[in-house]
């Protein structure tokens, strides 16, 4: 079994790859998903700890989707939170800066 990830930037090459597999008698299963990150990846991307991200998720400040019992944060939500986090920190530091 092999897998193929296709994104909006992938171009058209995936079409031929799938045809090639079908021609060999294989079946293909296609799933569509919103791109997302794990809490650890969100933490790495923003530069905070995973514990901070989990705390924000549990407080309802970061919207997630569940995959089984795991949280996934859609990329659009990562970007919303990133900018909200900067504004929040700036408000807090504005007096001292």
């Amino acid at each position, binding site marked *: 079994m092999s897998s193929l990830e296709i994104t909006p930037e992938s171009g058209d090459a995936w079409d031929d790859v799938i045809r090639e597999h079908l021609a060999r008698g294989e079946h293909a299963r296609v799933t569509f998903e919103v791109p997302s990150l794990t809490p650890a990846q969100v933490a790495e991307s923003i530069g905070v700890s995973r514990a901070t991200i989990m705390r924000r998720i549990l407080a309802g400040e970061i919207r997630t989707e569940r995959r089984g019992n795991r949280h996934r944060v859609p990329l659009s939500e990562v970007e919303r939170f990133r900018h909200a986090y*900067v504004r929040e920190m700036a408000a*807090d*530091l504005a007096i001292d800066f």
Partner: protein
Amino acid sequence: MLYLLAPLSDYRLVYSPLVEAEAQRHQKPGHVPVAVLRERWDWTLVPDSDEDAALVDTDPKDLPVLASAIQSGAGFLVTGNVRHFGAHDLAAHGLSAVHPGLFLAHHCSAESYLEVLAAISAGRLREPRNPRSIHESEIAVQLPALFDARRNLFDSAAADLVHEPPGIVFRGPRCVHCALLREPDVDGLCDSCRHRPIRLTPDRTLS
């Protein structure tokens, strides 16, 4: 600015307890202690170095700072006192010392800079209170290289707004722009970065 721009940029900041103590010593009365801010905003603390690194030409009072940076595996030591860090010591450990203004000039995009200026001005109760005046007064004085790199964003910004810049803004073997060990010049740029159009808008990778 370093901390506000970090989530929007391509670098991670760490500092040691000794640096925190020094920063707190210089805080004005009434300001929130740096240690409290660190806990509130989840800033990363790395240990002070527990070993005497073999350092030869760094200012003795900054030896622990450099030793901690080496131990933590940092690529850059961002400091207002670049001249305190010796060329030999930096070269021996693949580390560059760089003034925060020059570092930010190469590691934050115009968009991110404007966003952070707007966020600061939104929370300000004292002057300067708008992005342009913060840029032209505080940034011009404290982070002159960043002001210079972004002067086109507020087209009235004139050259004489930059106060006396620090004498030495960069020292070390790692290019301030590409972060590779390419023997950069005194302005922090290696030959390769100097001879290609430099984008001052680093991409942020999400995974």
